[in-house]
């Protein structure tokens, strides 16, 4: 029942937080943070106290009957990959909480309830092993997210919330059709009706439909990722979402797309993935370049970061469809590093917006003189985003490029130019916001009577400083000593890679890795 508890904790915490507003105005946030810390402690204790069996990928594996009529069970399991992603989810949940602390005052109980329910849904996505269960979590996590955007967002929030929901739902419906088709074809082939991943993965279907079923999954995942033709919801959603929702969205929700590709598409459809691989790598290449170029031309800071996400998530897509062990490692690393660095950038943008009531690059400038600490943090995470060696993003992008170069050098070449563009837009952002003429300083002097002028000057407070410092440290850790993370996920990735690389010898590599 451990994994059930892990999902139930935020779920129940959300209900309590929602209710606790009646007791005290500040109670919901304390309950939310307590609940997240508790979940975190619980997750780590699961990891510590379950004996690591090297022959078995799955740390924990639990099943309960759910819909026996169609042989659907509530099957949860956790391996290294899910573990690191859930860890990321909970940590970024804490970051989101820290940024919500002073920002959310309206209906705070309902806010923290929705916040925790979103996280519960995301954890469910990372744990579900039955395809229908996975689908349920996949869709359900959107509903509280929708509320977060539609209630606490900026001026155009309804449009953004609707767009977000419709895009992901349309993808989700295609996935539902694919899930059912997959189960039916699997029944045809083996006479076993099952929606269970671990059963389905035993005998990949060999039907002409496999390609199209696979495409249904892929579309659902790359809408979420998001990759080039389906990305247009992301900038709108990010600009309108409240900062905590932005953080969760960028840091974790997008990763569910990458996770879906790694966990379901590649192992369930080895042949079909091979078939779609060139197209997907092409889309990834376009996403990288296009996202970077769009990021360059934005003046709204949130849109800029959002487009840079499109560019970075292109590397995840590229890594997944390079069908190569190193690239897969890179994709996972990119998910983690991008999760941390983008969450931090959104948090900083949120702080800037909170202090200056604008995100427009043209109205900002010279922040370093007024807000030195915030600007220093901005510089660091901007550097991380452009792939500075020594930080997690560099390791990730390098591994993706190495892996891709082995399979398809041309795509690697295209993607590499994305790195240069990343430097261009990151530096532009840093230059225009933190350095240069301090536009606001003058304005402040003029508006000295304005009630906000006092608020503007305050730099990071202790809580924000600690949060951001910890995020810096984790990025540096990922950049300097990524091996512990790779050790966690390698088991799952070797399994996937061995489907595609016939000559691939996991034993040798494992030894090499452990050395």
């Amino acid at each position, binding site marked *: 029942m451990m994994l059930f508890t892990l999902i139930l904790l935020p779920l129940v915490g959300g209900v309590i937080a929602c209710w606790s507003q009646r007791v005290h105005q500040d109670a919901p946030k304390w309950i939310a943070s307590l609940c997240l810390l508790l979940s975190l402690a619980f997750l780590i204790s699961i990891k510590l106290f379950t004996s690591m069996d090297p022959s078995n990928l799955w740390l924990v594996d639990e099943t309960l009957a759910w819909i026996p009529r*169609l042989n659907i069970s509530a099957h949860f399991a956790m391996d290294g990959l899910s573990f690191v992603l859930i860890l990321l989810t909970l940590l970024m949940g804490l970051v989101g909480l820290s940024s919500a602390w002073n920002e959310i005052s309206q209906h705070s109980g309902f806010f923290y309830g929705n916040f925790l329910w979103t996280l519960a849904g995301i954890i469910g996505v990372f744990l579900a092993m039955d395809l229908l269960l996975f689908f349920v979590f996949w869709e359900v996590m959107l509903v509280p997210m929708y*509320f977060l955007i539609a209630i606490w967002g900026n001026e155009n929030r309804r449009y953004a919330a609707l767009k977000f929901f419709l895009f992901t739902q349309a993808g989700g419906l295609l996935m539902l*059709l694919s899930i059912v088709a997959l189960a039916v074809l699997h029944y045809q082939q083996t006479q076993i009706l099952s929606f269970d991943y671990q059963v389905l993965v035993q005998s990949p279907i060999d039907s002409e439909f496999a390609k199209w079923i696979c495409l249904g999954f892929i579309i659902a995942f790359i809408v979420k990722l998001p990759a080039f033709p389906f990305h247009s919801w992301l900038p709108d959603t990010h600009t309108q979402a409240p900062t905590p929702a932005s953080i969760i969205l960028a840091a974790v929700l997008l990763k569910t797309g990458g996770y879906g590709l790694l966990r379901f598409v590649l192992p369930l459809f080895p042949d079909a993935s091979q078939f779609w691989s060139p197209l997907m790598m092409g889309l990834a290449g376009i996403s990288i370049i296009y996202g970077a170029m769009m990021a360059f031309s934005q003046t709204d800071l949130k849109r800029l970061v959002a487009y840079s996400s499109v560019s970075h998530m292109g590397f995840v897509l590229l890594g997944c469809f390079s069908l190569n062990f190193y690239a897969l490692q890179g994709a996972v690393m990119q998910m983690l590093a991008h999760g941390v660095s983008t969450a931090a950038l959104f948090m900083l943008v949120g702080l800037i917006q909170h202090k200056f009531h604008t995100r427009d690059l043209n109205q900002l400038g010279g922040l370093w003189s007024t807000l030195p600490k915030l600007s220093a943090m901005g510089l660091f995470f901007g550097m991380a985003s452009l792939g500075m060696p020594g930080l997690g993003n560099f390791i990730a992008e390098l591994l993706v490029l190495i892996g891709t170069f082995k399979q398809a050098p041309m795509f690697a070449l295209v993607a590499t130019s994305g790195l240069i563009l990343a430097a261009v837009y990151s530096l532009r952002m840093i230059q225009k916001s933190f350095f240069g003429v301090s536009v606001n300083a003058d304005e402040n002097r003029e508006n000295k009577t304005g009630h906000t002028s006092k608020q503007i000057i305050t730099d990071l407070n202790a809580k924000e400083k600690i949060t951001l410092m910890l995020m810096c440290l984790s990025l540096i850790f990922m950049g300097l000593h990524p091996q512990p993370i790779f050790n966690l996920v390698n088991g799952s990735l070797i399994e996937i890679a061995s489907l595609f690389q016939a000559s691939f010898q996991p034993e040798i590599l494992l030894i090499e890795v452990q050395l």
Partner: protein
Amino acid sequence: MSLHFLPAMIISITILILLLAIALKRAHNLAYVITGLGLIGAFFSQCILLYLPNSSDGLFAFSPVSSLLSLLMLSILIFLWLQLYAWLAKQKGHKEEFYLLLLLVSLGALGMIVSEHFASFFLTLELMSLSFVGLIAYSQDKPVSQEAGIKYLVLSAVASAFILMGIAILYLQTGSLAFEQVTNEVSSSSSIPLLSTTGIIFILIGLFFKLSMVPCHLWVADIFQGAPLPSTALLSTISKLASFVVLWKMFNLGGWQHDHIILEIIGLVAVASMLIGNLLALLQNNILRILAFSSISHFGYLLILLLLFNQDADLLENAEFPLEALIFYLSAYLITLTGTFTVLMQLEGKTKLEQLTGLFWTRPLHAASLSVLMLSLAGIPLTIGFMGKFYLVTATISNQVLWPLPFLVIASVIGLFFYLRIIMVMLSSINQVERSSASTTGERASLWFIIAVVMGLGTFPAFFAEIIKHTVR
């Protein structure tokens, strides 16, 4: 007389008692209690009869499936009856006859679900339709309601005429009025003769009118909007349930879907209903009109299932699965719809979208249950609507009928837009703090019950699925 007639007998006796009671003394309480006792009695007798073996007496045929559907109908009626007292108490004019008409509708629908003969089918259909005219035109002070009543009367008469004509043509061909004989006769020949096809199409037109499928849908929005709320609720649940069951029976017995003309018509109507229903609902500003149009599209989805019966293409080797899917989807949709009308009745006729503004902050429980219901209609997981959709998709895919699926996806996405619009309106903040009227314990209990049923059956559908599976076998 077989024991199976017990529920209908109870309802008939209740009708007589109620007539007498009204003649002796007009009292709202009394009429309410008598109706309730009758409905609950019918419900429990139907429960007992659930797993009795099939029996038929030429006019009516009983099977576990028909019992389950009657049970579903009676539970919807009881739930609406519970809400009715508070609603009627606020209305002007006589109240007792409403219960009478309600019972007549129930009797008609009960008969229609088990009818096995064109004579019994037509009689029960007319009993139901004519009572509906009274129900729709019930509000004496609302001219819209009178208009809606007349509209329904005229159109329903036209539909009945079509059905009668169809029956006559089929009788001409086969010399019988029993469903089984007619349908067997019609489908036994290798291809259905053109005259029979014409007759079938006439009957289909009549039923499509009752189900408000495209292109016979033009009446539905005006009547939904004009009729008193409980009548609309009955019209959209009971009448459609009974009509759809008859439609299913004909397809199941006769295998009409094997005829390519009928197949094309059903396919066309299904796709048109899905798309047009949802498109029409897109920019409506009245929640009743939205519900009217969305019901068109929901029956469009259901129509796909009709094509799956008696096909030999089932990949899951489970010939009964389409029927299970049909019952599940139908129950899911009707339960959700009943819940929605209950909430609307409690909101005292606030049916314009702008009247719902900020409902989340003035009446949170009403808003929350309405949101859950809208998500269920949209088919979002953890609601019963999603499980219905899942059953439908599984049945469709396993029978290799793939062409409606793209339309289903498109229609669902369009549908999502206006269901979310309703939620969005309720979320928007209001400036002036409206006096939040306190809800009674009964209201709160019924709202919690709705949420519990819609989400409970959506999250743990195993029990319900087993019942359906057991019934269908």
